[in-house]
């Protein structure tokens, strides 16, 4: 054990705080999911009741499906576009500082303000997007009052906010690859595309893994975007009701913290599952 002392010491400050501020809330959530609690009165142990209600609750399942759909609709374009922008930025020399700031602005802008703006862009009868569609002779889309309109609008907001952010992450990853690699590839006569695909992407794998897992965890917890765009009820047909929105509604609006915690546990399982799948998917290429 002595051999590992420096390592344990190195992580100990972190894990000390972690136990208090990370682990305790997690165990508390689990504890709460077995109680009936309105947040104010006494807790009452109810065994598996909350989970029984959960699995038979069609709103919960709908919120799960909504969350996954919005997650796919937002994460795939975000990561792909982020990667493209990073490559272009990496090879382009002029105005890079300007580009960087321009792409970074969305991720630092307060979400509440952004949602007000997106509300007017997607507004059905008088929104900007429909005005543009109209001008182009295309049919108007009821963005915030139809099932897919709502999902696309929420996803568009997420893509807008996080693409540049992921581009910056990839850019940092690209910095770590020494220019020798690129030079060597050029000497070997490899095309740009081949260099990218065979050498750069595999070397970026750890960073890509990070973005994939981070967007899995973040994306499956989508909350504020939906709350502000379509309201706490999730909009018409509950198309915008995400899992965390449902959890929040049950716990803080209806004072049902026990059930809120049960939804939280459900969410935890889903996030864990998809994180493992994604981890496997990204890592598989590495071994091959």
């Amino acid at each position, binding site marked *: 054990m002595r051999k*590992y002392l420096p*390592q344990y010491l*190195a*992580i100990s*400050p*972190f*894990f000390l*705080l972690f136990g*208090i*501020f*990370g682990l*305790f*809330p*997690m165990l*508390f959530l689990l504890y709460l999911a077995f109680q009936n609690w309105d*947040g104010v009165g006494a807790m009452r142990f109810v065994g598996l009741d909350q989970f029984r209600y959960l699995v038979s609750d069609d709103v919960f399942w709908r919120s799960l499906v909504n969350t996954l759909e919005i997650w796919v609709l937002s994460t795939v374009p975000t990561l792909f576009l982020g990667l493209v*922008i990073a490559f272009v930025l*990496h*090879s*382009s020399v002029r105005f890079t500082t300007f*580009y*960087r*700031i*321009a*792409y*970074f*602005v*969305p991720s*630092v*802008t*307060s979400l*509440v*303000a*952004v949602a*007000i*703006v997106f509300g*007017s*862009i997607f507004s059905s009868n008088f929104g900007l997007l429909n005005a543009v569609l109209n001008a182009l002779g295309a049919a108007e889309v009821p963005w915030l009052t139809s099932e897919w309109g709502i999902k696309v609008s929420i996803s568009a907001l997420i893509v*807008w906010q996080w*693409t540049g952010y992921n581009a*910056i*992450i990839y850019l*940092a990853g690209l*910095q*770590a690859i020494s*220019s020798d690699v*690129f030079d060597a590839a050029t000497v070997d006569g490899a095309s740009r595309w081949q260099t990218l695909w065979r050498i750069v992407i595999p070397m970026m794998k*750890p*960073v890509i893994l*990070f973005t994939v897992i981070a967007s899995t965890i973040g994306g499956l*917890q989508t*909350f504020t975007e939906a709350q502000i765009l379509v309201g706490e009820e999730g909009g018409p047909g509950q198309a915008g009701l995400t899992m*965390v929105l449902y*959890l*929040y509604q049950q*716990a*803080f609006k209806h004072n049902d913290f026990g059930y809120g*915690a049960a939804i939280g546990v459900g*969410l*935890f399982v889903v996030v864990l599952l998809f994180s493992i799948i994604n981890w496997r998917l990204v890592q598989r290429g590495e071994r091959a």
Partner: protein
Amino acid sequence: MRRPKVIQHSVLGLGVLLSLFPFYWMVVMATNSTEEILKFPPAVTPGGELLTNVGKVFTEIDFFGSMLNTFLAATGATVLVLLFDSLAAFTFAKFHFPGRTFLFVLLLATMMIPPQLSAIPQFVVMAQFGWVGSLKALVVPATINAFGIFWMRQYIAGAVHDELLEAARLDGCGFLRQYWHVGLPVVRPALGFLGIYTFISVWNDYLWPLVVLVDPDELTLQVALGQLNRTHDTDYSMVMAGTVLAVIPLLIVFLIGARNFIADLAKGAVRG
């Protein structure tokens, strides 16, 4: 070689337009009156009401006082994160020790708890420590930045080569010196990003500071700005003016933090 650059710049330029458009609209809202932006058709170009709106923000809330609070909290958290998280991440990435995988998975697991729910137990802990209402309550929990550790671990795994560490070890470098001399210099861009990321998330956080700060004179900027959102009859122009003002310091922090990337890019430019 000229043609590809044209394509690249037009792709980037289009992205910039899309990226900045909502921000432009925020500026439109911040520089017009609320009447102008809510009426139909709304104003679409910047107006001349910016100073009026900013003036209203300054009278309604203690803008600079809360900005100072936010700055202190965000800086404190950033320093601690850079210190603790990079060391922990380095250890996770490059050393094998019993319990490594377990601890790492546990770490990732906490990211999966929605912050809305964990606020309650965290608040209880804060109350026990007597930290409710103080900036410590914002700084210390922000230190356990699981995203940060995960990010650094991934970056270090790819960027710091085992051979270098091995060489350092053969030279008689202990654990800490390997971290300091071999690890840190290579991971500067990652640290730059981690710093920016931490600073921004503390700066923009709303729910936790709202819950844990109780003194009307000691709020963070986002909480103070939140007070401008009335139940009815919100003055959106004023809210937008405050929001735009609150973003400016972040852009400055980004510029400072991004120096790391930019310096490296300049080096890379040679191969262009």
